[in-house]
């Protein structure tokens, strides 16, 4: 088992899909990046913080970065926030932090893929 099965969300870079306080079921068994569009829990490069973002590009994909383009390596993904700076500001936070800040994420940092939201009761369902 590579990580937790149940996690709670803090901060707001994934609003409106994920709200602070949501409880999620995570599958920590995958050893490859799931398809583009998937929500993943991972360890942020540099800081090691347990974080959540959406896969916006997988191995071999070409992504925009620092005014140019880069091609993701065989084990890398590009992870992005759902929210823009104005959405996070509305929730009382600074701009979102994602691959635009910390770059591509190697698969060794993958912790798990989000399966289901099981709390709070009014928000139960697949995010």
């Amino acid at each position, binding site marked *: 088992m590579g990580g937790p099965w149940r996690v709670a969300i803090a901060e707001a870079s994934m609003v409106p899909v994920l709200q602070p306080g949501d409880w999620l079921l995570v599958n920590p068994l995958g050893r490859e990046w799931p398809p583009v569009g998937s929500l993943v829990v991972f360890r942020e490069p540099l800081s090691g913080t347990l974080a959540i973002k959406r896969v916006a590009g997988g191995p071999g994909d070409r992504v925009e970065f620092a005014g140019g383009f880069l091609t993701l390596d065989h084990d890398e993904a590009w992870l992005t926030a759902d929210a823009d700076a104005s959405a996070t500001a509305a929730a009382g*936070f600074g701009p979102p932090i994602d691959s635009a800040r910390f770059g591509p994420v190697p698969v060794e940092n993958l912790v798990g893929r989000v399966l289901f939201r099981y709390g709070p009761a009014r928000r139960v369902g697949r995010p």
Partner: protein
Amino acid sequence: MFMTRFVLDLLAPRTIVHAHCDLPCGVYDPEQARIEAESCYRVIEKYAASDDAAYRTRAIHIKEERADLVKHHLDVLWHDYFKPEHLDKVPNLHDLFWQATKQVSKVKASTDLADAKKLLDLIDEVDAAWKATGGLEKTRVNGRPS
């Protein structure tokens, strides 16, 4: 009631994951912009006093870098420190920042000392607005060093 709480405690995740955002540090001071603008002023003086072509080219490059930093620091103040309620105390706030950032662009393209001086004067007006809205007390850890 007890059972509900028991079940909820049992189900509650033990792990927090961060939908990570920047945390504004809350420290703002127009002095940052002023120091970079003073660099522009001094570099223009040195540019004018030199007849070494390589030195003058470097001076222009450094002045443009510093001017970009002035604009960055002004933008941070404008977007992050100042709030709509500050317009009560500084009604010309937006016009002031518009003039100041336009003046930065002028300094970036100019070697006229008067342009750099005008930028310093505008930053002093921003400084006055920052003080008038409580910036000195609210945004520095121990106030400005004396």
